[in-house]
């Protein structure tokens, strides 16, 4: 079976690639486009380490096929900072020590950004339920949740 030829946009840049039918978007991002910021923790959509935005929607890239994303807009962790300036969430995660090993951090940042774009003033419960699709084994979630709430407050101040 011949490979699929796909054209899409990743972090604002036009990309084109070939992929097998069974390759996931995560496989394509990591192995073909060399964007290794999205991680594979489970390949079954249960850990959220592969979280990306697909046409403005938060998805697990391990549950999307590479050949499905023709003409679509993908945003990964690599596109979160603006030039040399880290996104407020990235800055706050560092200030709040909201990461220990850091493997889940890209997924949490992408998911948190999606949350704050929808809900600029979430309660702690809303933050916890939105992020329930992202597993962290190191931090116990405390500092992650604090960082998201503190960033929300910072961003609301403008």
């Amino acid at each position: 079976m011949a490979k699929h030829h796909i054209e899409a946009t990743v972090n604002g840049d036009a990309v084109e690639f070939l992929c097998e039918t069974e390759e996931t978007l995560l496989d394509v991002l990591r192995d073909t486009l060399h964007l290794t910021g999205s991680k594979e923790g489970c390949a079954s959509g249960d850990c959220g380490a592969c979280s990306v935005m697909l046409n403005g929607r938060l998805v697990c890239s391990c549950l999307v096929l590479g050949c499905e994303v023709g003409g679509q807009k993908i945003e990964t962790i690599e596109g979160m900072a603006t030039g040399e300036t880290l996104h407020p969430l990235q800055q706050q995660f560092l200030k709040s020590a909201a990461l220990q090993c850091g493997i889940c951090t890209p997924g949490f940042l992408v998911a948190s950004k999606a949350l704050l774009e929808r809900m600029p003033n979430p309660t702690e419960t809303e933050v916890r339920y939105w992020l329930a699709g992202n597993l962290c084994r190191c931090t116990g979630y405390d500092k992650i949740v604090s960082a998201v709430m503190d960033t929300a407050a910072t961003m609301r101040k403008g």
Partner: protein
Amino acid sequence: MAETMTNGSSQTYVGTRTIRPDGADKVTGRARFGADFNLPGQLIGRVLRSPHPHARIVSIDTSKAEALPGVKAVITRADFADQSSEFIPAGEMMMNYKDVVRNVMAREKALYEGHAVAAVAATSAAIARRALKLIEVKYEVLPHVIDVVEAMQPNAPLLHDDLFTVGVEPKPEKPSNIAKRVEIKQGDVEAGFKKADLVIEREFKTAPVHQGYIEPHAALASVSEDGSTELWCTTQGHFIVRAHCARLLGLDIGKVRVTASEIGGGFGGKTVVYLEPLAIALSKKAKRPVKMVMSREEVFKASGPTSGATVRVKLGATKDGKFVAAFAELKYQAGAFQGSPVQPGVMCAFAPYDIEHVHVIGYDVVSNRPKVAAYRAPGAPISEYAVESVVDEIAKKLELDPIDLRMQNAAHEGTKAAYGPKFGPVGLEETLNAIKKTEHWNAPLRKWQGRGVASGFWFNIGGETCASLTVNEDGTISLMAGTPDIGGLRASLAAVAADELGVPYDKVRPIIGDTGSVGFNFLTGGSRSAFSGSMAIVEAAKQIKAELCARACKLWEATPDQVEFSGGSVRPLGALAEKVKPMSVADFAKVAGKTGGPIGGVGRINAQGAGPSFGTHLVDLEVDPETGRVTVLRYTVAQDAGRALHPAYVEGQFQGGAVQGIGWALNEEYIYGDDGKLQNAGFLDYRMPVASDVPMIDAILVEVANPKHPYGVRGVGETPIVPPLGAIANAMESATGIRFTELPMSPPKVLKALKDKGLSRA
């Protein structure tokens, strides 16, 4: 408070919440974890694993796989030389390589579902998967046994016909699944129990759980024609990986260079080898680099979940609450090969308490499930869950406050531990007091809500450590450590170096060196990396300060008593101060070449003096009588850190360990079918806590300085997982009146227990 200032150092960064030096890379996805490395021309390696929990491997035919286009190498047991049975030190650990070589690649038998039987390297993952299907293995399926008590029965299926129980007299004539019996004894427990007004005896059961690191095992090996080997892997101990691979493959240690990638969690599970020797063997055969990454299913089935266990505890107290006698019998699963953490489980069981008569027996038992690897304070959560539950029952029966009861019996400085030595200064009483003073302790509870408290302990270790400081030409400092950074180590070490040398924090650049660049380091584990690493950095800084003072003496034509290092500079003293100005580290750096050469120091130590860390946890929870679901409402941790080099990362250890304990207590377990196969080998059904399962974890930092460390540091990483199991079981009793003696207390079990007591109409 012990002396914590080191000579000539300022205290600007240690104890503050600095931004970690590896932070920008971690929040942008730039940091390279195990599976993020690639080499040109690399092959993809995959492992064929036994579908049977116990089977003799009659034959393996790899010819069809080898013939498949794109397959460049296939390995089996034939590619690994057998190792003799001998416990030898390997990177400072006692290993039996006869077991290690068999765990890495099965030889006579497959001993668990998932046991590696063969491996291939091919030009793509798809071809590798197809190749595995072409390998023909003839198995003679054997009866299996998994549960520890069943495995100890005389007629249980036998895993190893050369395993004779060590530690029993007379030596057994027949082999069994009981590898070892261990014991500690103090006083006379029989006499002690006679003196008790109240004796409680209970039996507890726990299930195997996995460390649950989000990053699967990954390794990339490249072997050259001259036999030199490069390996990138995710590991807690790259020197240990080097030692194991060199031994298993017959290589000179110096010819193997291992680089530790960033590590996505370990918790003890990445202190041993699985893929690494396979990747090297495949690369050697294929003459190309080979990359191997485990799937999540493979991580669950073929890495090192901890023991399931059966524990019996008997504790006697006077009616005033003084513990007089303590007995426990621990039976721990070791997995397919011997080596469960039953020994530390035995030693930790009653460690928080000063008890005159103690007797603890432990059994290390093999059974057909993966070989146990360490999991954060290995052995202690299990035994201390049982003990803390019985302590709680005693408090309730004697109508004593559970904190006061623990305080009355608490180990403190000078207490003789049941495993032998006397404690130096320790902080158990301080943590008990800290919990008692919280608003949490007195907050009101409603129906179906309960509160539980428990204490816990871990020894902590030091170990061989090498770390270096190099002064660059512009006065910046390069710091090289050798223990993988799993949770903020680089931030702590940079703070220590900055304070020792009196330079700004952001002028210190820490890296973790590979095995070719830095001297031997024991692995990251035992809560040792900040403790030992900071000691080695202090030593390295001492050498630099001495060297700079010596150079100043030559430059200023002064004697040693006329100069001193303080606040980042060598300062002239007395009359000399009128003739010359102080010189900073950066000043010396500019003239380093002209004054003797590059400036640096190396700390090479076997760190001793690790101080134990005690902790006390308090938890409120609510039980839903219709579903059996337990909601953790509130959680407070108080633990002794000695001295927190970086308070945020110490809090992080408290919080992370507590939540792992919550998972272990309420939901996590390996579920085996009658066929011996794992039914929940994924994150959906192996249910770890998510953000909506837990509240904020309040962390109280207690600091009782460890007098054996220049800054008073105690390791903190492991103790936090020890108290939660007991604290949550105690809170469940408070909420329901039911003493849960089996973990996890998952909804179906809780609901059944409530129904049996007529407390639920669901």
